[in-house]
């Protein structure tokens, strides 16, 4: 025992030594940073983006934020530091900005959220045309419905939702139907995943039933809810980012998700395949915007411009895996080679080919528009009722009641015996 303890202590102390060495290094670095700050010219640029949504220097990729700092210093001779933070959902980002908890210079929300933020006067109309590299953006991504005059946003990525399935676990005749109804297939009970956010989950039911995803009619939403309630017994889990783990380890066989993330998952597990349902699906855009709280609008515009240069956009597109609206990226040979044929096919060929005309015709049916507060509240209520549907099981009630009753019985018994005892002693006295 003692021997083990000794070796453990040796290990521990060496570990602490390494740690302290590291921390020395860290403090040296932070010393440098302080020195930079001391000359008074370093400006902080606050960038607020989705998680895993920028090339960050991982495994030899470009660290875009550090490169921008260098680029900006060479350009202007002024020092800027990018303070990069991330969020998991549009709603997280919105509530943080709305509550005034943070001041940001760049945010990258999705279409319907941009629409909502514009209507609530939360974004700066900086004018996309004033950014030189905006010419790199493909024409079909300009004048889109959420920002018709290109005043508030510059497209960063776009993509579509499709169905990911595991070839080993799903029969060919089922995935060859290429339909949303695979998510309702009784055969795969307990192997199906669903989005854990109301918008996308309701979307899947509404596409299947050919309902209007932006409907303001409560009846339409009720119909979608009924469909989701039918699906609930078959669902293994309602997921967000857990999907990566569950699909790559084959814990689940079928899941709806974003094409760009499928590309990432397929690298890990080659059995995973993908299709766009024939009934139609969601098309989304994530665009760079400058919120009203920004204190460095000019640097923010320079940042957006930097993101649109060919080299940076290619690095980002490879890292993120989502489709890029940048003309130069799609033509870039290094990009095409790194993505591979299947990924290129899924990301680009399957999405609408006809430029502006087809997109504009589709906006109404395939893109999410921001809800009115009334409908937002109603959809939330429906989502709750889906979650509480059949949520308790009998054994839970029985066990709880048994526990509570036995605790009270025990307490009653002990007070009874105590009273009896004290009465006994009193008589004796």
């Amino acid at each position, binding site marked *: 025992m003692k021997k083990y303890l000794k070796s453990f202590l040796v290990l521990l102390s060496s570990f602490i030594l390494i740690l302290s060495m590291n921390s020395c290094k860290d403090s040296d670095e932070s010393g440098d940073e302080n020195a930079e700050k001391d000359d008074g010219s370093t400006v902080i640029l606050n960038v607020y983006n989705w998680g895993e949504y920028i090339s960050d220097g991982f495994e030899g990729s470009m660290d875009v934020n550090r490169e921008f700092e260098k680029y900006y210093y060479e350009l202007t001779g002024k020092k800027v530091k990018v303070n990069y933070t991330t969020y998991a959902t549009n*709603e997280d980002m*919105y*509530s943080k900005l709305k509550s005034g908890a943070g001041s940001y210079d760049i945010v990258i929300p999705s279409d319907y959220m941009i629409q909502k933020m514009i209507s609530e006067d939360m974004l700066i109309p900086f004018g996309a045309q004033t950014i030189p590299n905006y010419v790199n953006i493909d024409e079909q991504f300009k004048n889109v419905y959420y920002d018709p005059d290109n005043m508030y946003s510059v497209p960063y990525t776009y993509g579509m939702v499709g169905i990911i399935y595991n070839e080993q676990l799903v029969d060919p005749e089922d995935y060859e139907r290429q339909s949303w109804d695979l998510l309702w297939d009784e055969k795969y009970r*307990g192997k199906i995943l669903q989005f854990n956010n109301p918008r996308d989950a309701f979307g899947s039911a509404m596409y299947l039933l050919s309902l209007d995803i932006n409907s303001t009619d409560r009846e339409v939403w009720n119909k979608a809810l009924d469909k989701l309630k039918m699906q609930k017994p078959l669902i293994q889990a309602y997921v967000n980012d857990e999907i990566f*783990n569950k699909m790559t*380890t084959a814990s689940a066989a079928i899941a709806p998700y974003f094409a760009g993330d499928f590309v990432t998952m397929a690298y890990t597990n080659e059995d995973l395949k993908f299709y766009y349902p024939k009934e139609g699906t969601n098309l989304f855009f994530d665009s760079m915007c400058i919120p009203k709280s920004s204190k460095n609008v000019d640097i923010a515009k320079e940042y957006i411009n930097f993101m649109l240069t060919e080299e940076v956009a290619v690095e980002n597109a490879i890292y993120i895996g989502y489709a890029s609206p940048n003309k130069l990226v799609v033509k870039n040979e290094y990009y095409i080679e790194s993505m591979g044929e299947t990924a290129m096919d899924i990301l680009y060929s399957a999405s609408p080919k006809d430029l502006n005309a087809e997109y504009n015709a589709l906006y109404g049916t395939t893109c999410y528009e921001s809800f009115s507060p009334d409908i937002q509240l109603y959809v939330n209520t429906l989502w709750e009722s889906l979650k509480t549907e059949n*949520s308790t099981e009998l054994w839970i*009630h029985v066990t*709880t009641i048994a526990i509570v009753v036995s605790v009270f019985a025990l*307490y009653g018994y002990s007070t009874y015996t105590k009273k009896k005892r004290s009465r006994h002693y009193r008589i004796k006295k």
Partner: protein
Amino acid sequence: MKKLSQIKHSAAAAPHIVWAVLFILLPLFIVTYYAFTDADGAFSFENVTSLSEYLKIFGLSMELAVIATFVCLLVGYPLAYIMARANPKRQKLFIMLLMLPMWTNLLIRTYSIMAILDDGGILNTILNTSMHIVGTKGAVIFGMVYDFLPYMVLPIYTCISKIDKHMWEAAADLGCNSFKVISKVIFPLSMSGVISGVTMVLVPSISTFYISQKLGGGTFELIGDTIERQFVTGALNVGAAISLVMMLLILLSLAVMNKFTDSEDGGIIA
């Protein structure tokens, strides 16, 4: 002279008072304020009256928390007893082993449990089975027990190890067999430890949201999840109202629990 010492006393207390006001009273006030106003800031009872919708979720959260606490007590009490009776060197090792998992963040531990118990997870791969564990209530209860067990064991352990060693001998001398020593003497004497253990497990179990999200597979919601979603979707007032009601419920259950301790020992809340 007396005044000076009084000033010194209050000066020493000042940081704590400032802390209490800033981080306890003020937040409480803000929660109450939001709970009784609507989105425009006007006084309203609507948030509180609308809570009947969440009755089912409240019920389920309470039930799962009660079961998890009971399992913790069932597992934790014997462990604490064995620890307290072991020789001092062993005791240190026991405490070390108990505390070790707590050095890892709760979120990471929960995520790891998910990876282990998942349908295609490590456990099912090793056993070559296809058990469906994640996504059931049992998995959530297991997660609560795993994450909160040390909070049950430590107060009970402290309490038992403080009991005079001669109590065992005295009880045995007076005719108790080893079972009766524990049930009639040691358990009643360690009641205050049990109560604080139960409190420290029950309260975080009721309000947890991460464990239920990851291990529950999102097929049902506990009250913590509901509150989180209200704040994320911007329904601050409803979220505040649920939080307030939950605080009252917890206060109520603590008050009930205090009944179980003898008054001379003192309870969690006086």
